[in-house]
């Protein structure tokens, strides 16, 4: 070990060519320790449920704000890709708060940074980003099939006026139309983005564009309305003064009928000459560019949580894995500003690279399994000089061209990757993933079949294939994440006799048949919650075979004994919590626990569920 003796009164400096530099070897040792301690102090943190405030199911993010600037950074595909694959990830290393927190998590001294927009039940309140739908109150089959649509498909009795070519650089052919007379086409409320299939894979892209947004809508996300349309290619006119197309060097120029024909020549025509397409209705409001999956908008005071720390964006990683939504780049998100109510709503758009489609082409086996430039797999391939065979290194095989490449066989929920790294997905914790898995597994077989039917595959076998793959992917997700967490959910308190209650819950792994056994045993204790110090035990360790914890007379007596009357007033000092472990092998092995917090409500003389802490 190199030793250094600091001489009293020495300058502790060295001079090099006129530059005075402080040698690192002569920094006082205490300073180094202090810096290290400081970093660890800041990096090592535990999460706990904040029970101090009331529970909320609606975020306060619809306050009027001045019209924000349009976000432009996320619109550029090459920069977005390079940034996410290289610069962002390197930058994360330099974010010492996150880096040290990560190190702290690895060595067990800290918890990861959990989502910042969840309520005490670890759920996402409704907001301009997300609305609880199918997972909390089941949608009917008709509602699932309808998705976000309002019945305003483009009016095929009118001649469609082409307003512009498709703006994005994606390879899916398409253009923007207005289904009303020319004089009404100034307003984008009559505009639709029309997207087509490729000649090699008829129905593939349009089916994906129909199916995926319906799943995402049911999951709770904001998506545009998508309609499947069949139209006569001769019923187009081009707006003579407003229709623009990006020509050579992306310069805008007036669009001509020849441009439309050139697009239509590249798409499959049906035997009767008509063309199948998907019409995506323009979103209400004024577009403000894509939302980034990192940071916040600086000009939106409603945007208070870093995007990568939003639960619904982190959990989207699991939903995207289910749908093979590989193209979650920034450009496939859009903020719309309501000019009347003056707030921003956040949408997901463009679902042409989902299921088996990669825009106009079929997905490649590597997409969904590795990033476009995945340093991990590249290093592994190089390091192993080819001995490492990636499980997804398989020939591209498609049973149905209308489906593209979509399978469950090589799908691994832990390994799934979008094409570009997504900051929100990178920050996803187990709790976020569990939340996403709950959404995915909320789709029953019937739900999946209903939504897939909206893809209107000509070949019924293709439809069945897609539905089956989705069911298998759902089951893999559920099996994987419900094993990593203790999947107890839907905690409710039910009155029994006199003052007694029962805390009922559902074991999602058992419900969905993902558990290793059909029967589970639960071990629980009930303690009084105190802010600091050791919690007093109210109910010693007990075992039950059904998901119902009795808060019966004996419990109430024990609780009354250990709780002063002053603490039964319904404030935070009257909180108790139960810690529940689950076993699927009659107590041989136990899962990590779930802590459920209850508060005594003196007015109703009942306990209420006020918080859930899922340990990971």
């Amino acid at each position: 070990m190199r030793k250094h003796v600091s001489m009293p009164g020495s300058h502790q400096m060295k001079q090099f060519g006129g530059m005075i530099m402080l040698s690192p070897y002569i920094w006082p040792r205490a300073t180094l320790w202090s810096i290290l301690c400081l970093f660890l102090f800041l990096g090592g943190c535990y999460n706990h449920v904040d029970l101090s405030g009331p529970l909320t199911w609606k975020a306060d993010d619809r306050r009027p704000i001045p019209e924000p600037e349009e976000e432009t950074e996320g619109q550029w595909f090459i920069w977005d890709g390079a940034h996410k694959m290289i610069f962002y990830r390197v930058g994360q290393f330099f974010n010492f708060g996150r880096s040290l927190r990560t190190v702290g998590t690895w060595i067990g001294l800290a918890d990861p940074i959990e989502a910042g927009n969840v309520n005490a039940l670890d759920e996402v309140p409704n907001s301009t980003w997300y609305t609880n739908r199918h997972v909390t109150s089941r949608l009917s089959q008709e509602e699932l099939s309808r998705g976000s649509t309002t019945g305003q498909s483009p009016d095929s009795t009118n001649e469609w006026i082409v307003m512009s070519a498709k703006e994005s650089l994606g390879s899916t052919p398409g253009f923007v139309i207005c289904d009303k007379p020319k004089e009404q086409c100034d307003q984008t409320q009559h505009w639709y983005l029309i997207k087509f299939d490729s000649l090699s894979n008829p129905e593939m892209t349009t089916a994906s564009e129909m199916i995926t947004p319906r799943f995402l809508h049911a999951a709770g996300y904001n998506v545009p309305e998508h309609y499947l349309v069949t139209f006569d290619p001769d019923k187009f006119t081009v707006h003579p003064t407003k229709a623009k197309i990006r020509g050579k060097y992306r310069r805008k120029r007036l669009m001509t009928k020849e441009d439309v024909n050139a697009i239509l020549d590249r798409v499959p025509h049906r035997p009767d000459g008509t063309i199948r397409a998907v019409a995506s209705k323009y979103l209400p409001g004024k577009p403000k560019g894509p939302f980034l999956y990192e940071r916040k908008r600086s000009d939106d005071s409603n945007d208070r949580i870093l995007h990568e720390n939003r639960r619904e964006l982190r959990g989207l990683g699991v939903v995207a894995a289910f749908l093979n939504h590989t193209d979650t780049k920034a450009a496939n998100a859009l903020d719309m500003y309501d000019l009347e109510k003056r707030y921003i709503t956040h949408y997901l758009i463009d679902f042409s690279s989902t299921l088996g489609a990669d825009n106009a082409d079929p997905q490649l086996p590597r997409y969904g399994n590795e990033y476009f430039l995945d340093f991990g797999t590249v290093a592994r391939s190089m390091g192993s000089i080819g001995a490492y065979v990636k499980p997804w290194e398989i020939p591209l095989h498609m049973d149905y061209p209308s489906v593209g490449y979509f399978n469950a066989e090589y799908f691994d929920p832990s390994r799934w990757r979008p094409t570009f790294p997504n900051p929100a997905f990178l920050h996803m914790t187990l709790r976020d993933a569990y939340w996403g898995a709950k959404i995915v597994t909320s789709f029953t077989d019937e739900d999946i079949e209903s939504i897939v039917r909206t893809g209107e595959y000509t070949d019924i076998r293709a439809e069945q294939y897609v539905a089956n793959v989705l069911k298998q992917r759902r089951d893999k997700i559920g099996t994987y994440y419900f094993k990593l967490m203790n999947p107890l959910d839907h905690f409710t308190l039910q009155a029994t006799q006199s003052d007694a209650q029962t805390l009922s819950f559902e074991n999602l792994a058992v419900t969905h048949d993902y558990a290793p056994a059909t029967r589970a045993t639960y071990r629980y204790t009930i303690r009084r919650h105190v802010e600091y110090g050791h919690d007093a035990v109210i109910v010693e360790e007990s075992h039950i075979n059904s998901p119902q914890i009795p808060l019966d007379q004996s419990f109430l007596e024990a609780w009354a004994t250990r709780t002063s009357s002053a603490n039964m007033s319904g404030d935070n000092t009257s909180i108790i919590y139960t810690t529940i472990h689950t076993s699927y092998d009659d107590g041989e092995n136990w899962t990590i626990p779930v802590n459920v917090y209850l508060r005594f409500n003196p007015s109703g003389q009942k306990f209420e569920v006020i918080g859930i802490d899922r340990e990971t």
Partner: protein
Amino acid sequence: MNAMIIFLFILMVSVGGCASTGPERSQSQQSQSTAVVKQDLGTDLPEDMRPTDEEDSLLYTILAAPEYLWKGFTYPIKKMSILYEEVDLLERVLDVFLNDARTGGVVPRFEFGGALGGGIGLTAFHNNLFNQKKRIRASYLIGFPDNHAGEFSYNDPAVLGSPYTLDFNLLGLDVDRGRFFPGGNRAPKDRDGGQTNFELDEISGDVTVGRPIVGDFSGSFFSRMFYADAKAGSGRDIPAMVPGVGTSLTAFEVGPQLTYDSRDSQFRPSDGWFIDATFTYTNQVDGNTFEYVGYTAEVQRLIPIFRGNRVLLLRAYLAKLNSLNDRAIPFYELNRLDRNHGLRGYERGRWSDEGALLFNAEWRYPVWAQTEGSLFIDAGQVFNEFRDLETRTFRLSAGAGFRFVTKENFALRVQVAGSEEGMQLLLKGDVEFQRKRGTFLGGL
């Protein structure tokens, strides 16, 4: 020791004392059940009670300062990248070099460690002449330190719609710093006793007419006319007794070629055989000094491993020249093994003699989408007569490299190979193992 104890104490206290929370808050009523979602319980909160992100704290902001510095550092890259996309810079650049159909144009070329040692130049080409997939190519390379090479080639895959193929090549060389190591397989390396220098001017034209015979078999007939003028170079001159030094030569060459090629791709093969045999007769037309015959035999076997993603390539190559009527073979026509000719750990021009025997084994594996890595080992020797061949005199080299390949063509190869004589770096665009026997530029 004390510091360590203090550190651990502070650590334990600190990680336990830092708690993070971040739930949404409102002044709404409490929910009694998590199973029932009440959608409209939120009201506007005072500004100081609205949720904030844990990472918005001052301390996290301070700790994120290096990330902001990093962003500042990458800002110019970001601006350049966006500008690149905004103005469609790639298309603009391609338009400078290629035609609208991207079937032809003028592109820069470069190489380091190639047959001329290294150089830069331009290649003009068209791959779909007359819309009939006829190819034409003209290239000029300025080598280091003062070597020049010009090439012109024309390929017609179906002459007048017939099954016959036609290849026509013109080559012009002005080599002022060529290297020659007298002594064949025992030539010393050191500059004093081994490497010699020469100058060479050469003009060569050849025509090959071929046609498929049956299946993957094809045959062709090769004819070549060339003029060469070689003399001693600067520095340590090539010995005057070496045939070809200080003389000029005009000669013609003819010969048949038989090929069996079942490879699945010419540029990125992963399966199949390539078997090729040639015979040539060369005679001087402006004198009686040089006359010789040559023959080559080459066998390549590509073995796909794991569905073709990994390929083991095995290759054997034999070439031999024999002088006729006690005449000579000019040194610049000798068979050669070096970093451009199969023995990749040896410098340019290192081994040359009438005969060459070479074995290669190469393991190619995927690294990224269009990039594959390779490991290879080469064993070869040059010889004057077959009886000179010995198992213990094989020269060995081994190395690794990366090939950035496209589906139909090949763009760039970076390769490092080592031998008993040191390391060799090669950076060039080429197709592996494609060579023309009997021209100085061989694998150019």
